[in-house]
């Protein structure tokens, strides 16, 4: 039987154009029995690796190509014949992307000619230039153009592309194109300009088109005429092109010529610049022995053998160059005062510690190398570096300069459609009401869009809609769009460095940030292709600590060297043990705050455990409560087997760290380090049942040889399995514990500077700025509103208080803020008029400033200022000052509620009011408790308490329980919501900012929780003001 190969096919990596995942296209092609399939996304090879892997799995030949946009806006289709062709394609795409503004790549014929070798060119779709000329009747011109292409690609590599998508002109066009091809003795080939795998996907394609055009289906003018752009079978294509059988057979001929290999592990790293005559191994060793004394006072034989062992391993694995590159980056950071530290498993390595890559001593913390390096490693270990977010850019620039633009690029990531943005964007396209979409998006619990329907149907509010036809359509489209890439973004820190010019391996393109280049692959593709990256991850906590230290130096004339702080300051631990940890690194979550008073960490080792313990993994594996009981001496420390004692002694017999998994595997079942590490990997996210069963058997067999009976081995294995999925590695936890201690120390000793830096490094951590502001106040640090004569762009400290920066005021924008500050430096502002005439900001912005109290220093009533602004606005520049004096107006003062509302509207927080403090006045109800009263009440008392929700969580590990933290003007209180109550009050839980909780007080282990039986929205009386004329008033209960 004859075959057809689709040579023009877009996946959803033709962003917002293709409507099928590459994998779906491949499986449909397999279903249609296509021997091969080409992927030709617009100006990119984004999905090349995913496509390649899918093809391997489906046993279909992969053809790598791209549909390129020419400088005149026309399209041509290019296919790579071999690896050189692939490199040329990469270069062409890179040129097209880098030489033009972001989002509108294009190539000209000269560039095309330069990199045309080993490529097959098809003349293009309906948007091709040749087709355009034929439609406009200029056949001769078309011939000339074809001759040009023949010159570029060679006659045997250029084909006229025929498409018939049942458009009115298609038949005539094919006829004319075939004539043209025959007259020039050229081959022609049929393609179907595929944009989705199956016909039914055309709906999603229409939706994507609308998202791209930012319009609705009803308004969109660029929808395709019909649904013919799917993968078609050989029979369908043969029928469409029955007059031109050659067009079908040529697809096969082309497919046979295309053979591209996509394994790049040979490329690896650039050579590190070494002193002449030295190898990387020698240089690394020398460096190590030279620097060992910076870290250790004396080199014990044990340390020496450890270093030698590691150096040998590194040499064996060929990673010396990699270590040197990372060392070089860290060295640059150190020399330039850039806060940075290695994270993750690298901290297990003593070499990394000596080189200054990591800051935790693996010997002191008894860290275990096997988690990081072992002889049987199948993949390269990543050394990830945490860098102060504010300084990250400098480090990146350094790498760019050192290795050259051509050898470095950031790894990209795809922002994909998930439940929330799918609901919003698909809904908008379908013309669904905004406010409903907003509520749905905010109530949906599922992260992925697959389960939207089920999830929403469980909410009483939405279930009547979801049964109707339009909403059914909506949910099915959301399900379909799930995980589609929406746009390209820069990966948080991954940098690709290669020995050959990167553009030969992977196409590069511009990122949104000016001057920044990203490669077209995300971290998975990069890893699958066998390339190595260095991760420079921005960590805001490092920025915060750095900024706080600078402020301390400025305000107190004290230079802090945090790395030399003694790690045993009792006052700092006291604060942590109280759970007073808002803003403190890693221990500020609700769960952390609740366990801190029980675990009572008193040392950096305790903090390491705390950081690793209160995490989903240990929670799921039921590790937390046993540990707490043991820690508090309520339970005896026991071990499943005596051999486990040395491994888990420090963690009181509880498995906590990834390193322990590896150690247990090697001690109990005699796994080699490599096997143990693959056990850990097998347990990671993408675990497969078969692989696990295999591992289990191996583990039990191994244990048997060591004389451990199968039942016990099985129990040990289960314990391993229970948490390994989300467990921390100890080295990582130790690094984080250090930052935790440092931030806590700053919070305790220099709270003003700490909170100021915390406000300046948002968003970070668990809490919103408003919560931080109130926490600062509870610690006696006053936060002042912005002031046009005092505020800088960022927040500043002002005599032990914090002055909000202009940046907190909505819609200000960098340019306007600089203008305000620059103009003020000439002379302070002395009135609203003076300010307005000198800065000439838009009215809305001045209004926001007035509402944010920034003009309060002038002592005018805020509404008078707003009134004045209205008059000023009417004045043209240069006009004499208006006389406001004669006409006086009396305007009401802002009420507390109005002022608070204005605060929240223009800056998202209020420096003066807590919402509850304002609303409390309007609530005369008895029996409403304040958070400060709860401690005095006995356990099991019934209470009713209202507050502002600062945290709401429903951890997947909590078996349906949900938690919220309420804050009122006096403090915070934790609320536990059981699954039934949650089900009933889910919408209140998820959406309401102010909530009334009815429930019982539970006091246990020094912890106070309210077990809720009902959650009610607290609606302010102000909302009822005009309601009587519009709709029936909504009662709060």
């Amino acid at each position, binding site marked *: 039987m004859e075959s057809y190969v689709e040579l023009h096919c877009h996946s959803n990596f033709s962003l917002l154009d293709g409507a099928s995942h590459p994998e779906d296209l491949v499986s449909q092609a397999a279903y249609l029995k296509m021997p091969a399939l080409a992927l030709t996304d617009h100006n990119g090879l984004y999905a090349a690796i995913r496509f390649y892997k899918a093809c391997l799995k489906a046993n279909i030949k992969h053809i790598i190509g791209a549909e390129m946009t020419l400088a005149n806006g026309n399209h041509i289709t290019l296919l790579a014949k071999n690896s050189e062709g692939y490199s040329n394609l990469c270069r062409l795409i890179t040129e097209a992307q880098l030489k033009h503004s972001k989002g509108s790549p294009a190539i000209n014929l000269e560039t095309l000619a330069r990199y045309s070798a080993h490529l097959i060119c098809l003349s293009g779709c309906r948007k091709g230039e040749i087709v355009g000329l034929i439609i406009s009747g200029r056949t001769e011109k078309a011939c000339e153009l074809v001759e040009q292409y023949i010159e570029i690609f060679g006659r045997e590599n250029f084909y006229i592309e025929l498409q018939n998508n049942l*458009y*009115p*002109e298609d038949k005539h066009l094919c006829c004319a194109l075939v004539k043209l091809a025959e007259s020039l003795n050229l081959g022609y080939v049929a393609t179907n300009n595929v944009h989705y795998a199956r016909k039914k996907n055309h709906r999603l394609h229409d939706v994507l088109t609308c998202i791209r055009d930012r319009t609705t289906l009803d308004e969109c003018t660029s929808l395709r*005429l*019909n649904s013919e752009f799917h993968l078609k079978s050989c029979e369908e294509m043969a029928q469409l092109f029955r007059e031109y059988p050659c067009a079908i057979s040529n697809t096969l001929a082309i497919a046979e010529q295309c053979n591209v290999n996509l394994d790049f592990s040979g490329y690896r790293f650039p050579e590190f610049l070494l002193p002449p005559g030295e190898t990387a191994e020698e240089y690394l060793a020398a460096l190590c022995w030279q620097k060992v004394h910076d870290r250790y006072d004396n080199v014990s034989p044990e340390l020496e053998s450890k270093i030698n062992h590691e150096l040998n391993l590194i040499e064996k694995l060929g990673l010396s160059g990699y270590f040197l590159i990372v060392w070089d980056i860290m060295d640059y950071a150190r020399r330039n005062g850039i806060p940075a530290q290695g994270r993750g498993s690298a901290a297990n390595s003593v070499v990394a510690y000596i080189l200054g890559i990591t800051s935790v001593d693996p010997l002191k913390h008894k860290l275990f190398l096997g988690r990081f390096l072992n002889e049987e490693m199948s993949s390269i270990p990543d050394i990830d570096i945490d860098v102060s977010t504010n300084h990250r850019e400098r480090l990146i620039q350094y790498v760019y300069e050192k290795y050259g633009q051509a050898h470095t690029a950031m790894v990209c990531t795809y922002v994909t459609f998930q439940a929330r943005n799918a609901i919003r964007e698909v809904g908008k396209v379908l013309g669904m009401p905004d406010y409903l979409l907003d509520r749905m998006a905010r109530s949906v619990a599922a992260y992925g869009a697959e389960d939207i329907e089920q999830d929403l149907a469980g909410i009483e509010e939405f279930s009547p809609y979801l049964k109707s036809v339009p909403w059914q359509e909506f949910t099915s489209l959301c399900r379909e769009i799930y995980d589609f890439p929406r746009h390209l973004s820069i990966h948080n820190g991954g940098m690709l460095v290669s020995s050959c010019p990167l553009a030969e391996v992977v196409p590069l393109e511009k990122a949104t940030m000016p001057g920044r280049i990203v490669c077209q692959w995300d971290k998975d593709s990069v890893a699958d292709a066998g390339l190595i990256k260095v991760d420079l991850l921005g960590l805001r906590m490092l920025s915060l600590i750095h900024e706080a230290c600078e402020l301390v130096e400025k305000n107190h004339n004290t230079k802090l060297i945090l790395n030399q702080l003694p790690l045993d300051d009792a006052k700092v631990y006291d604060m942590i043990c109280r759970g007073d940890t808002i803003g403190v690194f890693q221990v500020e979550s609700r769960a952390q705050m609740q366990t801190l008073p029980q675990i009572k960490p008193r040392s950096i080792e305790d903090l390491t455990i705390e950081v690793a313990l209160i995490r989903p993994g240990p929670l799921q594996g039921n590790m937390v409560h046993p540990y707490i009981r043991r820690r508090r001496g309520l339970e005896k420390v026991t071990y499943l087997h005596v051999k486990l004692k040395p491994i888990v002694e420090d963690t009181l017999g509880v498995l906590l760290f990834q390193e322990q998994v590896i150690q247990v595997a090697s001690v109990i079942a005699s796994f080699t380090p490599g096997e143990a590490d693959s056990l850990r990997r097998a347990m990671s996210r993408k675990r497969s049942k078969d692989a696990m069963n295999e591992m289990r058997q191996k583990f039990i067999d191994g244990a048997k040889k060591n004389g451990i009976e199968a039942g016990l081995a099985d129990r040990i294995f289960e314990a391993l399995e229970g948490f390994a999925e989300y467990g921390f590695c100890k080295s990582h936890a130790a690094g984080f514990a250090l930052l935790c201690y440092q931030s806590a120390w700053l919070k305790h000793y220099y709270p003003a500077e700490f909170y100021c830096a915390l406000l300046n490094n948002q968003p970070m951590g668990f809490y919103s700025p408003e919560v931080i502001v109130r926490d600062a106040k509870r610690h006696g640090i006053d936060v002042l509103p912005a002031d046009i004569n005092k505020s800088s762009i960022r927040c500043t400290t002002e005599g032990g208080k914090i002055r909000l920066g202009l940046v907190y005021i909505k819609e200000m924008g960098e340019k306007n803020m600089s203008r305000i500050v620059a103009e003020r430096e000439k002379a302070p502002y002395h009135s609203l008029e003076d300010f307005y005439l000198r800065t000439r900001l838009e009215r809305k912005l001045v209004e926001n400033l007035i509402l944010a109290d920034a003009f309060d220093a002038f002592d005018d009533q805020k509404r008078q200022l707003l009134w004045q602004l209205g008059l000023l606005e009417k004045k043209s520049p240069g006009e004499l000052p208006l006389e406001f004096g004669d006409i006086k107006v009396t305007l009401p003062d802002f009420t507390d509620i109005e002022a608070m509302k204005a605060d929240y509207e223009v800056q998202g927080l209020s420096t003066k009011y807590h919402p509850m403090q304002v609303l409390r006045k309007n609530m005369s109800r008895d029996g409403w408790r304040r958070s400060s009263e709860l401690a005095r009440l006995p356990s099991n008392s019934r209470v009713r308490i209202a507050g502002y929700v600062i945290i709401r969580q429903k951890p997947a590990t909590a078996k349906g329980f949900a938690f919220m933290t309420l804050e009122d003007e006096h403090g915070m209180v934790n609320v536990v919501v059981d699954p039934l109550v949650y089900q009933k009050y889910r919408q209140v839980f998820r959406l309401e900012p102010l909530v009334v909780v009815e429930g019982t007080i539970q006091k246990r282990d020094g912890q106070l929780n309210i077990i809720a039986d009902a959650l009610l929205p607290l609606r302010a009386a102000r909302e009822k003001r005009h309601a009587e004329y519009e709709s029936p008033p909504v009662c709060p209960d």
Partner: protein
Amino acid sequence: MSKLFKEAIRLEVAEGVQHEPAAFLYKGRRERVRETLKQWRVVQGWWRRPVEREYFQVRTESDTIYDLYRNLFTGVWYLQRIYD
């Protein structure tokens, strides 16, 4: 110039094997199709009122050009446009 029927007119059409129009009755006259000039398919409006039509632009033996379509859901034929 052409006359467009905003509300297309239902037609009796004699079809060929591939559902192509061979002849039709319009205003009481039987028009025989001499040739099909164009043929296209329209799939639109699935989100409100689905439309799937196979359009044919035909020249009849009376030398008039018509746009006809077949509703692909019902198989019913309509006249959409007559060219002057």
